[in-house]
């Protein structure tokens, strides 16, 4: 057996390592976006890539999200495997026609004749005091559209393995990274690995309640689970890792086992990811549930700037803990 070496690295470093490895493996992979080359993005996730791969593969674009996303769609159809960088997830609004009407539909509308193997990297998450146009979590929008795949890594390990899968996928994939988690550290093996889409990961096993959580909400859920343990409630924390494809089976099985479920996601609750997952669980585990599935998402307000206001909009360990305690009828 070869020895498996594991290092600690940040989520940002894990994303960078995945991109670098895939760019070494496949010369068709290139990166397009605003300030991706020498600047390495404002979050410095791409630092060093232009030095290794040059300016023909790590390409600074004008501030033209629709333009360079459209170019990526066409480039993906004709032999390249572009990764476009959308600095703040809020800016995906500017790319919606290219992603939703073009990238998502090209394969289907052409009866399978054309493919669009591209990745869009975008950020999500509030808490950075960046105001209403730099703080949203809009991944539900893309999850709604047939033809797109949506990835939400919650650890450095997952980020690396899922990014490699995203780049190798022959479909348009949107990869959302929580901008508050770029410095979050975790173990990542040096050996090559990928993580398949549509496979949820049980981040913590438990018996009394299932907490389904995505992206940064996984840490919130794990924090709540520790608090719950203190009052004798055993919580199972599950991360679907991709909102589409969605590992419905694992979510339903866990809810059947525990008989209670909370879904936590940083997107808006209304018509959001929590609604879809709650529906999957309510339908699939109906006869085993002791309580309605509880949803916890961002408050239905534009993200405010002022610290106490912004913090109030984001699900916290405490809100998840209180919700779980109430569902398990513990005082």
């Amino acid at each position: 057996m070869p020895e498996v070496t594991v290092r600690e690295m940040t989520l940002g470093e894990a994303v960078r390592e995945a991109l670098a490895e895939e760019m070494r493996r496949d010369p068709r992979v290139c990166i397009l976006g605003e300030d991706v080359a020498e600047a390495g993005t404002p979050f410095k996730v791409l630092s060093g890539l232009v030095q290794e791969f040059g300016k023909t593969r790590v390409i600074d674009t004008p501030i033209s999200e629709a333009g360079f996303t459209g170019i990526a769609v066409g480039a993906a159809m004709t032999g390249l495997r572009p990764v476009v960088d959308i600095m703040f997830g809020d800016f995906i609004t500017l790319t919606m026609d290219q992603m939703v009407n073009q990238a998502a539909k090209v394969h289907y509308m052409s009866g399978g004749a054309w493919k669009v193997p591209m990745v869009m990297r975008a950020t999500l998450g509030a808490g950075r005091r960046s105001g209403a146009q730099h703080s949203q979590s809009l991944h539900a929008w893309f999850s709604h559209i047939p033809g797109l795949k949506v990835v939400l890594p919650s650890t450095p390990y997952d980020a690396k393995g899922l990014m490699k899968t995203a780049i190798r996928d022959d479909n348009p994939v949107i990869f959302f990274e929580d901008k508050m988690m770029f410095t979050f550290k975790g173990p990542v093996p040096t050996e090559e690995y990928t993580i398949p889409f549509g496979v949820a990961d049980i981040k913590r096993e438990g018996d009394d309640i299932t907490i389904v959580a995505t992206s940064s909400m996984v840490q919130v859920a794990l924090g709540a689970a520790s608090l719950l343990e203190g009052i004798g409630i055993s919580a199972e924390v599950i991360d679907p890792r991709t909102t589409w494809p969605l590992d419905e089976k694992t979510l339903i099985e866990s809810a059947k086992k525990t008989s209670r479920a909370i879904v936590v996601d940083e997107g808006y609750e209304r018509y959001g990811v929590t609604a879809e997952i709650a529906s999957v669980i309510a339908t699939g585990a109906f006869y085993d549930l002791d309580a309605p599935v509880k949803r916890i998402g961002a408050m239905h307000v534009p993200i405010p700037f002022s610290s106490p206001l912004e913090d109030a909009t984001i699900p916290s360990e405490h809100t998840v803990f209180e919700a779980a305690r109430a569902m398990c009828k513990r005082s």
Partner: protein
Amino acid sequence: MTTVTNQSKAHSGLGTEQLLSMYRQMVTIRLFEEQVNELYTRALMPGLAHLYIGEEAVAVGICAALHRDDYITSTHRGHGHCLAKGAAPDRMFAELLGKEAGYCRGKGGSMHIADPTSGNLGANAIVGGSMGIAAGAAFSAKNLGTKRVAVCFFGEGALGQGLLYEVMNLARLWDLPVIYVCENNLYNEYTHFSETTAGDILARPAAFGIPAESVDGQDVRAVYATARRLVDAARSGKGPAFLLCNTYRYRGHHVGDVNREYYRPKQEEQRWMTERDPIKLFGDWLIGQNLANKAQFDEILLQVKSEIEAAVEFGIKAAYPGTDQVEENIYA
């Protein structure tokens, strides 16, 4: 006279066989579209159809300047582009009728014909929606060194879409081999373009440093000659170009747009059809140059007629896709 100069220019580089092949393509597009209209009025064709009749010289002149593996993107009024780039009428009709034998297995329809074998990246029903895709194909061509060129067809109505200006900026910055071909048929749906278009159209690409020209879109030789020059320049690494083709849509915005007098007079339509018809102009020139005679045109017409009739029959007789296919091709 300028016409003489243009004629000799256009003539050079095209043999009689190619000229007649272009004539035949224009006739094919005309008869194809007339059949579409027929199928639609007889309620045999579902959905929407936007006819290219009157604009044939643009698609044929441009595509004659392209290689088979060069790329095009097309529009909702795209049948002419697809045929001129090499699509077969039978599979086109099958697609228009939603049949499995169609280019998109019936999933695309009139506004979404795509065909990798002829470099057709797809017709697009979002006005201006393919401007990035065309630039992206040119980006691949440049990065992979394939020497291919991409042509983005769009109507003057798409001049209002911001994407055009984003990708023209990028295409110039990166010297992408993409030609933006604006077909000005005078009407954005039901509105004259003068009511929607400020300033000088050619000044827009010129502002990005993109060579911009206009051409008589009813003169297939002039379209070809200009396209040939721009395409060759793009292929040799000189970057993008913009070609404004002045043309006219004989029919309505779509086949159901029959009463058009509230937005354009019948006399205007008549004038274009009698004085500026691209097939007649080209035919007269070919005869005037002793490159063809009336009998040859009659034979071409007969052949194309029978080809189109057979294609329609193929489309009508072809099977619908099984409903088990509805969930196929969502993901590759």
